[in-house]
């Protein structure tokens, strides 16, 4: 394991920012620290960088314990949320700073800086000051500056937060490709699940200062290990008593479970092949979602959300319709279980 973090704890006054945080990261991976704001993800990142000292616990980078090592000696590049570019220095000077501090010789610095400016696509802008750059350009400078001293680990704090939505996606892809091309082990902080799923090889989900789950985006999405993860990743409705629905009679009444929109089908009763597996519900809200209708249904006191294809007949608010729940997540002491609808497979198949 290239980065190993064991039982990190950190408090600010009375606020517990990190609670027994442990995880490992493989060399060359691009990892997202994902969580709601205040979940302690930035604190973890700053502790890795050495900008914040943990109260207890160990941090290992490449097998070496770095707790006592100064930030500049850890071989880490840090990209700050608002980039923190040196405002009175040009693009060139910003990128060169880390090398000058390390006392590299002038010719070498020039060569490296020019190489990086070329790499991040800012050729011709080297004499500009930060306030003369767009958000995306600033981010590229911050990225180049962090990479200049040749770090083995790159840490990025909300790298896309300050960029407008339109170019965010483009920059996301660019950063992902760039990091994979360079093969530098990277960790970025984000509160945007879509961003994490889109960019990261692995996701570490944090909540209230603790790590909830770590895994690939697919694992996190398909097998959430806690109700928090299931609710935070993807859209979902929390159901307190799933046993009342058709096809889930075997479940204990008080089992907490979660239903994702893609787990349910909403439509008129005649649209279903086996109506026996469906429940009745009243449509509460219909909204246009671009590629589909988003429909909220009140079913036995629970509010469920699902999508409906634009190809099918539109439904109206107040209409009584049928809902087929294909599957749901059930949580118990062991973690998540996926439970399938028992009635979905026709109990009396007719063969011709």
């Amino acid at each position: 394991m290239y980065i190993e973090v064991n039982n990190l704890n950190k408090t600010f006054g009375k606020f517990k920012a990190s609670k027994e945080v442990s995880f490992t990261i493989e060399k060359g991976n691009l990892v997202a620290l994902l969580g709601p704001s205040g979940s302690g993800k930035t604190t973890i990142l700053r502790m890795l960088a050495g900008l914040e000292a943990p109260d207890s616990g160990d941090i290992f980078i490449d097998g070496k314990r770095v707790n006592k090592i100064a930030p500049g000696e850890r071989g880490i590049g840090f990209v700050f949320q608002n980039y923190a570019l040196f405002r009175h220095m040009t693009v060139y000077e910003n990128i060169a700073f880390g090398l000058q501090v390390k006392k590299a010789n002038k010719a070498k610095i020039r060569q490296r800086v020019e190489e990086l400016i070329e790499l991040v696509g800012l050729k011709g802008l080297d004499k500009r000051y930060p306030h003369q750059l767009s958000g995306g350009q600033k981010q590229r400078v911050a990225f180049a500056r962090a990479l200049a001293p040749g770090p083995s680990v790159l840490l990025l704090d909300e790298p896309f937060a300050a960029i407008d939505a339109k170019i965010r996606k483009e920059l996301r892809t660019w950063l992902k490709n760039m990091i994979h091309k360079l093969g530098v082990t990277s960790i970025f902080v984000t509160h945007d699940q879509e961003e994490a799923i889109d960019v990261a090889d692995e996701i570490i989900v944090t909540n209230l200062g603790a790590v909830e789950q770590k895994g690939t985006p697919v694992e996190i999405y398909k097998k959430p290990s806690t109700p928090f993860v299931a609710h935070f990743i993807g859209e979902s409705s929390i159901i307190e008593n799933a046993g009342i629905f058709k096809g889930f009679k075997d479940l204990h009444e008080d089992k907490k479970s979660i239903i994702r929109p893609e787990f349910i089908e909403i439509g008129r009763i005649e649209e279903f092949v086996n109506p026996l597996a469906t429940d009745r519900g009243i449509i509460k809200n219909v909204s246009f979602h671009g590629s589909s209708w988003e429909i909220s249904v009140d079913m036995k006191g629970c509010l469920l959300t699902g999508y409906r294809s634009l190809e099918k007949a539109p439904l109206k608010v107040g209409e009584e319709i049928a809902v087929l729940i294909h599957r749901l997540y059930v949580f118990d002491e062991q973690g998540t279980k996926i439970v399938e609808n028992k009635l979905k497979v026709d109990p009396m198949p007719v063969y011709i």
Partner: protein
Amino acid sequence: MKKHKSHGGEPKGIKIILIGISVLFLVTMLILPLALIITQALGKGVRAYIEAITDHYTLKALQLTLLATITAVAANTLFGITAAWCITKFKFKGKQFLITLIDLPFSISPVIAGLIFVLIFGRNGLFYGLLEQFDVKIVFALPGIILATIFVTFPFVARELIPLMEAQGTDEEAAAASMGAGGFTIFWRITLPNIKWGLLYGIILCTARAMGEFGAVSVVSGHIRGKTNTLPLHIEILYSEYQFSAAFAVSSCLVMIAVIILILRNLVEWKAKKSR
């Protein structure tokens, strides 16, 4: 009938009245006194004027004022940067108290500031015995004047820097630290260039105040002509000796210095705005 309205929406009449009041106030409070100083200074002719300002005691007083000002400004610049740095870049208990403390000289009468030093270092003071042993004179001597000037002017630089550095945050410093820059490099290459205009502005204000300081210095100086008399004190002595035109002539020197400082101040302010 159409009503004429200015941009603020007030009728024209109010605008004229307000401008009139301001102009009247400025003329009586600022321009008239300044004009008076110049005319009075030249009241006995140019020769008398030049004589007054090239007088031995005047030059000595000017020398002392400059010395006290330079020392005080240097000390307060150092102190101001240190205080602003520790207040804005670190978290600690009692920060608010420290900020209040820095403001103290603004709220204390300069006479009291002077008395404080007399009480500490004077004949009946706490450290008099100790100072006597080493034959060091503070009160009624140059060190006392410098101390009093420092005390009165010490909020200027810190006050100017604290909000500026607070607004800039610590990210740039953290970025430099994460690249391996040491404390001195960070200060010299990141912090100082970012605050230079604010710092210069604070230094200029501090200088202006230090030059003109009267109350606190008056208490600790002892008014020894040619030795412990600063320019403002010298002016007062000349005035109380009925040497009006000499007093005004020396005053005009101080006024001129003040005007130069004012121009510098505006220049710095304009530069600072441009660099933002």
